């Protein structure tokens, strides 16, 4: 029986690469997220281009992980843009099982996919969350709730730590004050746009000048965290 891989890409270079490196597989090609979703994806292997015509590959991975029919799929991202550690980390945070910058070495690509298929995905496993985040010199462990810069522990309040984790999980994305109040403050905590500004300022200060500058204000209404 042939191994099956769904390949979601509109890029002819990615398509040609997959065809040549996955000989012997039964390949199903989809040129957009719409086409792929229309076909009714299941829990098999899918290779997803980071940049699709109608959706980002990372958003598609996140959507697939969130649905019970596709949560167990083996999802591999290939980024056609230049490799960046932040892009790779974001792919894993969205729930990808593997990330390979394009073009990967064909033998390695095939071996990684075969390895994933042989191991499968444990039932009921949710989206991958990295055990640690690295952002420049900053190292954050969500489980241990520790944040360090060059080995020195940061003294963050519980709210500042939650805020930092939210930004690390949404690197490069604009986050409005309203979303922060909803997702980080939640019910029962002090609330209001001024509270957000005050906490951001405190977090910036604790991160220090260089890393704190990565926490930018966008157009006066939201924030973005990127190096």
């Amino acid at each position, binding site marked *: 029986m042939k191994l099956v891989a769904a390949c979601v890409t509109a890029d002819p270079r990615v398509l040609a690469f997959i065809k040549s490196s996955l000989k012997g597989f039964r390949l199903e090609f989809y040129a957009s997220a*719409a086409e792929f*979703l229309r076909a009714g994806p299941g829990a098999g292997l899918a290779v997803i281009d980071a940049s699709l015509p*109608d959706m*980002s590959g990372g*958003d598609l991975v996140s959507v697939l992980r*969130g649905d019970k029919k596709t949560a167990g799929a083996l999802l591999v991202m290939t980024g056609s843009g230049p490799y960046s550690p932040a892009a790779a980390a974001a792919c894993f945070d969205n729930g990808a099982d593997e990330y390979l910058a394009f073009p990967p070495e064909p033998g390695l690509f095939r071996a990684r996919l075969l390895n994933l298929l042989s191991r499968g995905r444990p039932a009921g496993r949710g989206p991958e969350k990295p055990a640690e985040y690295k952002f420049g010199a900053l190292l954050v462990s969500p489980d241990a709730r520790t944040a360090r810069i060059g080995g020195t522990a940061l003294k963050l309040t519980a709210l500042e730590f939650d805020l930092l984790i939210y930004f690390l999980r949404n690197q*490069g994305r*604009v986050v*409005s004050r309203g979303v922060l109040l909803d997702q980080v403050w939640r019910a029962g905590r002090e609330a209001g746009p001024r509270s957000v500004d005050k906490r951001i300022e405190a977090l910036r200060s604790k991160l220090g000048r260089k890393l704190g500058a990565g926490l930018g204000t966008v157009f006066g209404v939201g924030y973005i965290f990127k190096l």
Partner: protein
Amino acid sequence: MPRRPKVLVVDDEPDYLQIAARVASKAGCAVVTAQTALEGVALAGAEKPDMILLDVGLPDISGFEAARRIRKVPALAAVPIIFFTVRSELDMVSEGLGLGAAGYVLKPFDPDELARRIKAAVSPSS
């Protein structure tokens, strides 16, 4: 001077409305905005935008229903619509893309990616 493409942004959350409008403006577009779906449908008919950035969870009718109504206007039957939303359930994404949307962008979003998608939608040959 060539005419700037016109983008209609519909979102009930003022922060996102403002951010998305700024992104579209920086992408070289003229921008009109609405905070409810029905206002958006009316504005689309009056302004004939070159593309529409449409939230899904709006207070009066859903963004999907608004898209259906907009598409019924002959002059807007093919206008590119990008859904711009926190709704990440697979069924919702399938429904949105199934309406022929040019894109589906999840919030919080990457402004550079949104700008790229807006530019691609207003000049599909680029």
